[in-house]
């Protein structure tokens, strides 16, 4: 299992990529998809929704179980990945390619608590 070093992570197994316009692209980690097993359903937030940091805003369901996905920071959802909704198995195939939603951080939103790759790997043991 590889943890890309150009991404940041939450302890709740989301990966976060900072785009050039300052928005954040969010998905779930490879560790998360492996623990979940075959992903069969995604429920993603709609563009325009204003979310709080740590709010459960999406659901990922595998054959085995349902899990919440949390907003890594406060902000506004600006896009969700309809292609992933139509092909949930893409999360298993490549968790770092199958992004789930994009979020525009609120002014002053705190991204300092996000982990780097080494920090996330330490967190999952």
């Amino acid at each position, binding site marked *: 299992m590889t943890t890309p070093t150009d991404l940041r992570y939450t302890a709740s197994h989301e990966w976060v990529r900072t785009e050039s316009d300052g928005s954040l692209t969010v998905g779930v980690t490879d560790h998360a998809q492996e623990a979940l097993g*075959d992903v069969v359903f995604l429920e993603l937030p709609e563009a325009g929704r204003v979310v709080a940091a740590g709010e459960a805003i999406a659901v990922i369901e595998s054959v085995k179980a349902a899990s919440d996905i949390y907003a890594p920071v406060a902000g506004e959802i600006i896009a969700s990945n309809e292609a992933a909704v139509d092909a949930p198995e893409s999360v298993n195939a490549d968790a770092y390619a199958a992004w789930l939603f994009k979020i525009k951080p609120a002014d002053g939103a705190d991204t300092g608590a996000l982990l780097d790759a080494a920090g996330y790997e330490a967190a999952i043991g």
Partner: protein
Amino acid sequence: MAQHTPLYATHVAAGARMVDFAGWDMPVNYGSQIEEHHAVRRDAGMFDVSHMLALDLAGADAKAFLRGLIANDVAKLVEPGKALYSCMLNPDGGVIDDLIVYFLSDTSYRIVVNAGTADKDVAWIQQRLASTGTQATLTVRRDLAMIAVQGPNARTKTWAAIPGSEAASNTLKPFQAAAFGDFFIARTGYTGEDGFELTLPSEQAAATWNTLAAAGVAPCGLGARDTLRLEAGMALYGNDMDESVSPLDAGLAWTVDLKDPNRDFVGKAALVANGARRQVLGLVLEDKGVLRSHQKVFTAQGEGETTSGTFSPTLEKSIAMARLPLGVAPGDSVEVDIRGKRLKARVVKASFVRNGKGLI
């Protein structure tokens, strides 16, 4: 500390994802649960079910004892090796366990019980043997391993893998078993497909597993076993029934035999007094989402509850078994509460897939 089956090291070496199941460290999958599921529906897969427990009951009173112990009637077993599925009830009519009894002779039976209930079952049976003064001995067979080989090609691949097994088992009818050397070969299963359940000495388990794998039988975990049994509409103890639920309310009335008015069995009076108060039907989710166990169901006749739910890999829809008010019928439209949202589902018979074919 979790218990290990004789195949534990084999699973770990194959890279299986191990989870705790009823106190046993068991493989949930070897990679993709869905691929393992399809292997069983389309070809052949195998499961380590050695966590389940075989019990041998032998003695002059064995038959009479079993007729009083379980809700189905072993008196209907006359062909050697014939199997019977039954619930074992408490005096209130609740299900202590569901089990399979194999008839070897009027004085000799093999019983296979669930892993999570095994200790409780043994204690209950021993107590009944003592309190009824029965001339029979119960032997706990933790020295045995069990491998379920399931799928349309399961029998032929088993025969190819185990020399001599074909002659010993090619005339077995469904739900019948035969001894083959140290092996006990039963044409039974928990997937809705043809196949065998092999009971064998623990020390031969790993070699047999590897030989079956070499013959093209796919190792499958308990994850696929659960989606397969749910598609087949087969009850899982602890989910679909337990000690608080009568078999008449759990879709298992077909396993309760009340034909002989002179036969009493534990729980019979309670079943007769209470009758059926609920029924088990299937649900197919029509909105997007995944049904899970213990979600509330709203019907025109009142509320019910899903007892098992999943995404069906064969049908590519979400399905569930649900305990519903009497009067609800296949074809009805109902709503299920999934995380606070009411989603639409259609009521069907609680049997979704058999022998590779969708039934809904």
